[in-house]
């Protein structure tokens, strides 16, 4: 192994990272997961921890880009150079960049994650049988709405498991439209567009308006690549068009004609001769996980290794059952030392705190039969130890920290915290107008105002000034509603208010419920319990709590995890 000149390394072990953008090749969730797994390759053998952050400046910024992408080292189109990263330090140092002219996969061909349907977000299974015919790509056959779909098992006819493939007709990503689908036609710069476009951008990413007029509404999103989208060339992201003509000959499939490198390509219009629009056909692609694990090695301070089987060897090689090579382990442990093993539980104080009004421990001195004095610690009062609370009154992300409310107390945790919160605070010390038991809370991301709900009342805090209590009836919530048990704020000045089976969309500015609400929770958020007692937004994901468990849902309303509040959120031992 090799380290950078001067043995560059981070001076702290709690490393933060931020994902600045996504590749259209893969579902954002698959990308997030690949990065998280790549970091865990290194955290497994060192004392390093990696925490994703969203708004602050992290140690490691991750981005996808093509050719000239904002640093002095341009990428080179498809293949060749795949990615690069900078050794630890400030600014661009520590950052990892991935060439978006590559076809990013998990190493074995196109990865198509489905949405909706009945397969709970499973990947497409290619090939699959539908009505006796075999399909190797997503298809619109059998549908009248033009939405591409696939089977998630080998045989749709037998198993009937299916989902929809990424399509701009289904959703967009990033942008400012919260995943809304494209609206065609849409107007941009006075021109009408009937498909995704690269116009108005210099980075080559395809986008669309999510309302009929971008010029007036300014609403947009990026188009996900279809599974038949080409890579690189001069039509990145556009689908192949078959048949196409090339040198006056007709082609019904990808070809390597015209090239001496045997790479398969296709035209993205019906005539290459006329339009000269082309791109490479999807291949096995490169494993984002493996490349990211290598790049993160650089970001932590490792240079290229001379050992051919090591992860830090400079050339890419796909392996299905990846294991970190001893050379990589030795290298990273030279810089940071080994993993200390399971985290020890926090020592419990044997002294009464002198200043706090909320002692978390009590001590009892006893005398044993041998008259040796021993000090034992009695268990914490359940109401004051977050780990012993079975069900919280409310959970909410306020001012960037997760707050857990119970019986007049609250605990708060930042995303960096990997241990349970210790001393609770009194609700009334921070928000004097509130009752001891609140049902829900949320912070409006735009105005930063914090709203609390308890029974049929609500309070609005702007800093330390408070409005309320007022009745939720004023918001337009029916008289039969006993209370609001959860809230999911959005960036567009709206918030979803939940009462178990129903939810309302509230306009925070006008403080009125939008028309068309309430709606049934199970219709729009399928797969989560309708008897949830806490609903909240945390780091961009929706959480529905029931008993000791939570159901975590993505912004595309897919349940991605069922976990324990106690272990997964509070990090209790």
């Amino acid at each position, binding site marked *: 192994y090799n380290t950078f*000149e001067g043995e560059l390394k981070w001076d702290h072990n709690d490393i933060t990272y931020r994902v600045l953008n996504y590749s259209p090749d893969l579902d954002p969730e698959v990308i997030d997961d690949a990065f998280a797994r790549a970091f865990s390759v290194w955290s497994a053998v060192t004392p390093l921890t990696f925490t994703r952050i969203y708004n602050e400046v992290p140690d490691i910024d991750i981005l996808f880009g093509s*050719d000239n992408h904002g640093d002095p*080292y341009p*990428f*080179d*189109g498809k*293949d*060749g*150079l*795949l*990615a*690069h*990263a900078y050794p630890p330090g400030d600014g661009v140092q520590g950052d990892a960049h991935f060439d978006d*002219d590559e076809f990013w996969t998990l190493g074995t061909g196109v990865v198509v994650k489905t949405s909706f349907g009945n397969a709970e977000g499973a990947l497409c299974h290619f090939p699959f049988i539908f009505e006796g015919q075999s399909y190797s790509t997503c298809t619109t056959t059998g549908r009248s709405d033009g939405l591409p779909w696939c089977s998630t098992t080998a045989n749709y006819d037998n198993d009937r498991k299916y989902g929809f493939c990424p399509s701009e007709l289904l959703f967009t990503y990033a942008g400012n439209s919260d995943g809304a689908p494209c609206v065609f036609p849409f107007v941009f710069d006075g021109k009408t567009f009937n498909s995704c476009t690269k116009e108005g951008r210099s980075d080559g990413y395809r986008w669309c308006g999510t309302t009929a007029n971008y010029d007036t509404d300014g609403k947009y999103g990026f188009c996900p690549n279809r599974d038949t989208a080409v890579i*690189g*060339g*001069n039509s990145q992201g556009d689908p192949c068009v078959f048949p196409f003509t090339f*040198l006056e*000959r007709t082609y019904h499939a990808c070809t390597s*004609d*015209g*090239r*001496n490198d045997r790479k398969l*390509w296709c035209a993205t219009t019906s005539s290459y001769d006329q339009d*000269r629009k*082309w791109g490479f056909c999807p291949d096995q692609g*490169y494993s984002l996980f493996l*490349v990211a694990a*290598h*790049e993160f090695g*650089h970001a932590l301070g490792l*240079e*290229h290794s*001379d050992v*051919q089987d090591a992860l830090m060897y*400079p*050339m*890419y090689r796909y392996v299905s059952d990846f294991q970190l090579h001893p050379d990589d382990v030795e290298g990273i442990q030279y810089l940071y030392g080994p993993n200390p093993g399971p985290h020890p539980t926090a020592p419990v104080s044997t002294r009464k705190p002198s200043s706090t009004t909320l002692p978390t421990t009590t001590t009892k001195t006893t005398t044993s039969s041998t008259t040796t004095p021993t000090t034992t610690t009695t268990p914490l009062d359940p109401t004051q130890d977050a780990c012993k609370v079975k069900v919280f009154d409310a959970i909410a992300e306020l001012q960037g920290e997760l707050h857990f409310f119970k019986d007049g107390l609250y605990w708060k945790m930042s995303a960096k915290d990997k241990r349970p919160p210790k001393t609770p605070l009194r609700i009334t010390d921070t928000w004097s107008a509130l009752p001891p038991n609140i049902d829900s809370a949320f912070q409006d991301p735009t105005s930063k105002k914090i709203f609390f709900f308890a029974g049929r009342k609500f309070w609005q805090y702007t800093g330390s000034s408070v409005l309320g209590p007022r009745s939720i009836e004023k918001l337009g919530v029916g008289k039969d509603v006993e209370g609001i048990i959860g809230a999911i704020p959005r960036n567009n000045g709206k918030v979803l208010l939940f009462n178990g089976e129903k939810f309302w969309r509230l306009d925070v500015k006008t403080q009125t419920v939008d028309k068309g609400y309430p709606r049934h929770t199970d219709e729009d958020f399928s797969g989560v319990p309708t008897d949830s007692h806490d609903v909240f937004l945390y780091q961009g994901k929706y959480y529905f709590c029931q008993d000791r468990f939570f159901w975590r849902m993505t912004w595309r309303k897919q349940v991605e995890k069922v976990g324990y509040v106690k272990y997964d959120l509070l990090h209790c031992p």
Partner: protein
Amino acid sequence: TPHKTPLSIIFPGEIRSNMSDLQLAEKYLQRYGYLALEQGGDSQVSLRKALSHMQHKLGLKETGDLDQETMDAIRAPRCGVPDIGK
């Protein structure tokens, strides 16, 4: 029917042009730190030395020549961080 001419065309928008093996190798050796950007003296000797260095570093057979194994390595997908130097 196979086309007679042309066998290979230059595709618009392709960042890498149709470089010769020698040009490709020089670019590779410079980019990854084996060959200084400014060449002086006997460039033939420098190139052989740089190729040997690269072959040694990547675990290839050290010939100092642009043989097939070396050209395959040069064309192989890889990380953009230099192998030598800053």
